[in-house]
């Protein structure tokens, strides 16, 4: 098994020297690949190690840095109270909590919430973003470093259905998408000062996808396609313009990006060009984003069927129906994929079984729309009411 993990580690580079392989520093983990880079995988036989009540709603994922789990939620009649929590990963003890107030609009569809974007970390700081466009930077001990109100800055940057794009951090720059039908923007923010390094107009269309990091370039997805941006300058490195989904995000490895575009399109971008490797119309992701393990890509379609296909050409290997409905994205460690259904069925899939197989299910008895986080041999999931550690 070990060489398999080594292969994974070689596929994904950690974006910050301050992060370790056990960290899960953003939405879908290292480089937003959804694949754990650590050798200590959670394995299949998981059970709840602890759970904690949360005081507000949220479908953001937990993130993990070292021995700390960070999570956001929003409470109050308009979800205007914005919470950031830091818990001990070991026992779930609360280490600190900060409560702020939304300065932007908090309106959101009932199925989502103000705490929809997942926070991210560069190993020194935690950046918490909300659908209200409020953005807070804390050190790992909860000291406030800076804050922004992006709707306070740009008054039409909001979406009445709510926004969910999670930020990424690279090269001392936090990249935030606030993409909507009106004032649609992306900004690169200096992690030290909280000021803009750059600000770009983005396609005027609602967009709930999150950026991925590919070869030190931040890939911003939208209905128009996928744009590779230099994190420090905002300069466009390459641009793929054949359209893309506005809900599922891309999968990324060291050598390619797999974009939800006309089904699924594999790209090998480099400076000045985003050449297409292949396209498979049948590999159309639903709400969840695809991921790559070894030489296979796994796509969860809109009917709750997980499809395994080759990353070389998109040829399908098997299909496996999961318990749905499913809103969150799958994540993986080793040979296992983990996903939780809206009805709280946490499912472990063995990707090495001949036709794929759900080998373990935990009933969490709650509504879960989130994407799990993996760290140090454990998995963290959350609902509107609880945070669980599964081990």
């Amino acid at each position, binding site marked *: 098994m070990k060489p398999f993990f080594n292969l994974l580690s070689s596929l994904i580079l950690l974006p910050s020297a301050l992060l370790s392989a056990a960290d899960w520093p953003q939405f879908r983990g290292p480089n937003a690949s959804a694949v754990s880079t650590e050798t200590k995988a959670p394995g299949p036989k998981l059970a709840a190690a602890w759970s904690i009540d949360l005081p507000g709603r949220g479908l953001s994922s937990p993130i993990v840095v070292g021995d700390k789990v960070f999570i956001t939620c929003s409470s109050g009649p308009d979800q205007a109270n914005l919470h950031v929590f830091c818990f001990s990963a070991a026992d779930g003890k609360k280490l600190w909590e900060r409560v702020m107030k939304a300065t932007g609009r908090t309106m959101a569809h009932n199925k989502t919430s103000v705490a929809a974007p997942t926070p991210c970390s560069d190993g020194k700081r935690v950046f918490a973003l909300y659908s209200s466009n409020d953005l807070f930077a804390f050190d790992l001990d909860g000291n406030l470093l800076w*804050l922004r109100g992006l709707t306070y800055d740009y008054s039409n940057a909001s979406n009445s259905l709510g926004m969910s794009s999670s930020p990424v951090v690279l090269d001392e720059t936090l990249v935030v998408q606030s993409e909507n039908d009106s004032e649609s923007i992306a900004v690169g923010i200096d992690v030290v000062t909280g000021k803009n390094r750059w600000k770009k107009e983005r396609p005027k269309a609602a967009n709930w996808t999150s950026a991925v990091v590919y070869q030190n370039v931040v890939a911003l997805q939208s209905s128009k396609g996928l744009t590779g941006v230099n994190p420090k300058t905002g300069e466009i490195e390459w641009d793929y313009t054949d359209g893309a989904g506005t809900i599922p995000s891309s999968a990324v490895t060291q050598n390619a990006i797999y974009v939800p575009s006309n089904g699924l399109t594999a790209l090998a971008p480099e400076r000045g060009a985003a050449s297409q490797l292949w396209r498979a119309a049948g590999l159309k992701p639903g709400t969840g984003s695809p991921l790559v393990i070894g030489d296979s890509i796994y796509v969860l379609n809109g009917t709750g069927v997980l499809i395994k296909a080759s990353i070389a050409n998109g040829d399908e290997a098997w299909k496996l129906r999961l318990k749905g409905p499913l809103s969150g994205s799958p994540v993986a460690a080793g040979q296992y994929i983990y996903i939780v259904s809206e009805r709280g069925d946490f499912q472990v899939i063995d990707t090495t079984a001949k036709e794929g197989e759900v080998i373990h299910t935990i009933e969490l008895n709650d509504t879960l729309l989130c994407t799990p986080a993996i760290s140090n041999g454990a998995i963290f999931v959350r609902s509107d009411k609880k945070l669980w550690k599964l081990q």
Partner: protein
Amino acid sequence: MKAALISCLTLSSIAVQAASLSAPLEDIRAVNREGSGNEKATRAWQQLTQADPSTLPEVLAGMNGANPLAENWLRAAVGVIADQAILAKKLPIESVQAFLADTKNSSAPRVVAFDLIQRAQPELAEKITPSLLEDPSSELRRHPVSKLLHAGDEELAQGRKDEATNAYLKAMNSARDEDQIKDLAKKLKDLGKPVDLPKHFGFLMDWKLIAPFTNVERKGFDTEFPPEKEIKLDASYPGKNAEAKWIDFTSKDEYGQIDFNKPFTMLKEVTGYAYTEFDSVEARDAQIRLGCKDGWKVWLNGELLFARDEYHRGAKLDQYKLPVKLKKGKNSILVKCCQNEQTESWTVEWQFQLRVCDDTGTAILAKK
């Protein structure tokens, strides 16, 4: 003499603390858009969070009149100081309570003060709650309104309808949040006491409407049609496939929806305007609050307040809060409402709701 000396020293210590806090408070209050002032605020925040718990009222007072960004910086600082103070049982509860009681302080820090009391002494917060029924802060009113609501429910469960009605009416009079108002209005209606919701909210119900101008390719949003240049209520203009002329419209909707589809039918790719006049008793600060899922613009007395070109992502009460200054006497309000080309069932609405209120959501009623 000894007591006087101690008192002097205490005063002097407070003075030193106060002097030492004024600079960081100023630095934080100076933060503004696009991260302006963040560097100084970072240092100031560190300094503030080292302050003695006795300074909490001063830090809270720093939030008075601050912009929402500075409020958040200070809210976080208060949180840190209070965490330590509550742990050490050193929260200056009396001075925090005095800060809450003083309604000259802004709503935001008073809400924080109440939260601190709730955390440190929940029984005291419970005792204070009824006194917040007429509070200038709608957020603080929620607590006593909620208590009255529950009290009414209990009376009703015991079959005491009159007592329940009285509790609900009292709560309704103070309620400012939509969820509580909706709940109370339903209970009162069931008890034979329907609530005049348009009056409670301050919805403007009587309008002149004109349509249909074009919005093909959504270009109507930026096109200045005649009503943006002149308000001539007896004029008519060439519109999209029809003559556009002003008509009277009075909303019958209890949530004040001004529905263009009613008089003009379910058109697509069209622009309409609504015009009304609001007779204000006095010159004053106010808010125009709008809910709309179409593209819209609003003008008060000829001045554009805000414009938004988002279509069919959802609408709700008070979706947009626009601070305004009302003149004494006649104030003209013009609303532009653009319907787009989408054909899905959830894109039929071509409407808005608009109310005039103060910043707590209390209706400001026009002079009749």
